[in-house]
């Protein structure tokens, strides 16, 4: 009974999402799929940054790894695209744990900058190993899915991963994550194994980003290129997580829509749509949202609910 209101709103959102492809044009379905992709990535980042307190400005790098996994598997082995997504999940899980190990020694700003380094370095690697990873020309998948397939895949994956995140976070593991976030010393004193849970959070978070990256590549006509996974992508994800509200699952849709839709929507407005107007709008919106609601949409929801309850 406790979860009834939450369950109700989830079912409502799910119903709207299921109806959307029948109501929207192909272009808008593609946009909605884009939001779904960002939903997964922001959700993953929130598990790490919001729930475990480990900031990452490098999740674009994990998206790149996931994306290239899909592209290379499809190019070389004509693997089923859904299977490549699962492969991306697994590979990024491993990479996440591998990055999480050195990250154990870092915290706060140092961790932020180390993960920033990751975001900058990883997209350079395809240029070095261009035979296997296509260099600047990128990698093209063997098959490219339709907009509707992509929409269905993105939001089905979102739903599964959302439930998975909820299950992880509500139990023992989630409690350990939050303990690490709130006070590492207190967590250790209570018997939480810091290295285990920190690397686990990194792994899960990276695996989510991997699936998002895989879909991200499929959304760009199955084309993986280094420029798509630049630093800006990592920064956008962090913006999405902050706009959504760290440490809560309720704002993620708003955060994903913010980074997925705002640049596109503002570019179709006359005057500002020209030149680099959309950057101006997006940047100004980020600053404004943070000034008005520093704890993001989830914080806003919590405040409204408290007001309604009082």
């Amino acid at each position, binding site marked *: 009974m406790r979860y009834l209101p939450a369950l109700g709103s989830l079912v409502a959102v799910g119903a709207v999402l299921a109806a959307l492809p029948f109501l929207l044009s192909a272009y808008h379905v593609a946009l909605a799929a884009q939001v779904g992709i960002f939903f997964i990535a922001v959700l993953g980042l929130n598990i790490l940054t919001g729930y475990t307190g480990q900031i990452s400005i490098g999740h674009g790098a994990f998206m790149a790894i996931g994306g290239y996994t899909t592209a290379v598997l499809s190019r070389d082995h004509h693997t089923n695209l859904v299977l490549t997504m699962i492969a991306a999940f697994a590979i990024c899980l491993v990479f996440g744990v591998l990055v999480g190990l050195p990250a154990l020694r870092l915290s706060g700003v140092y961790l932020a900058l180390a993960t920033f380094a990751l975001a900058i370095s990883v997209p350079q690697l395809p240029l070095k190993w261009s035979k296997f990873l296509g260099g600047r020309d990128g990698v093209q998948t063997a098959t490219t899915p339709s907009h509707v397939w992509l929409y269905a895949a993105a939001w089905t994956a979102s739903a599964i991963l959302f439930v998975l995140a909820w299950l992880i976070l509500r139990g023992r593991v989630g409690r350990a994550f939050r303990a690490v976030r709130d006070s590492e010393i207190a967590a250790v004193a209570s018997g939480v194994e810091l290295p285990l849970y920190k690397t686990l959070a990194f792994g899960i978070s990276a695996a989510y980003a991997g699936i998002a990256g895989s879909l991200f590549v499929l959304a760009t006509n199955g084309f993986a290129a280094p420029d798509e996974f630049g630093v800006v992508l990592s920064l956008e994800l962090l913006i999405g997580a902050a706009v959504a509200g760290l440490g809560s699952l309720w704002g993620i849709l708003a955060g994903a829509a913010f980074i997925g839709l705002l640049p596109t929507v503002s570019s179709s407005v006359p005057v500002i749509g020209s030149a*680099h107007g959309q950057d101006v709008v997006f940047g100004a919106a980020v600053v404004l949202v*943070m*000034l008005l609601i520093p704890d993001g949409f989830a914080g806003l929801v919590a405040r409204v609910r408290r007001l309604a309850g009082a």
Partner: protein
Amino acid sequence: MATAETSRLEGLRSRGAALGGFGPAAISVLLVAAAAALLVGSLRSSTFAQLTVQGLALGSVYGSLALALVLVYRASHIVNFAQGELAMATTYVAYQLIQWGLSYWEAFFATLGIAFVLGTVLEVGLIRPVLHRSAIAAVIVTVGLFILIDGVVTWIWGGDFKFMPSPFGTTIYHVGGVSIARLYFGILVVVLISVLLVWALFRFTKLGLGMRAAALRPAEAALVGIRVDRMLAIGWGLAAVLGAVAGLMAEPSQYVLEPTLMQPILVYAFAAAVLGGLESPAGAVVGGLALGVSLNLIVQYVPAITSELQLPFAFAVLLAVLLIKPSGLFGRRTVRRV
């Protein structure tokens, strides 16, 4: 206790050196050895000498922006992602002033003034209201500013290359068979003078003392009558000035002005600041110089590190340093009481 406090204020020495493996002494020895190696190399090969001077000039630009990051970090305990874009924007302001008829150096100093105002306004208007509620929200504001400033500059001036007159001419010096452009000496000198002036301000003036106190112990500083808010705003202003110096000196080293001018430099400045320990002004400058020289030499002499791998390599080194010494080469090891 008094001496311990002084060293804390200067942020140069590591009080907990006994706890970490590397003490300041070991690092000084390392730096002297590196300088000696560079000198010997320069005397033996003219290419090596050219690369070293060029690397020092580039490194001083990294160091200047890194110092700006350190000043902001000491004032507000956040990393300002917009620092590089702010520097780029002020460089465009200088470009515009020159277009309107000012000479290069008139524009240079006018721009520094404008940068100071911009930096303080940013802190007061956008950072401070958010910072006291959530540090991460303040960081996101700087990320938003990164995108915003980039957009505004591209909107006003367009994304195409702009050219500024060269501040140091095209003279080339010949020192014992080595040809070195005057440009590189000019960059190095201008940056080092700015850094020294900032250091002198912090070290010898009452304002500087107030700023150090406000950054390290805000509550106690306020108790003895220091206007902490004003000091922090001035800190951001000075950071913007150093950034403007970095931008104005980056332009001649890249030969063109474009909106992406400072993006790679910001990355190296991050690396330099972390290498130096984020809280240490001297560390940031030394880190910048070390990074500039070593990258320039490594790309030339180590065949496996091609230019694509320059950035990943810089960060591999950075990560290695962080893993051995998590608080950077010059950082204080913080010991927390629970």
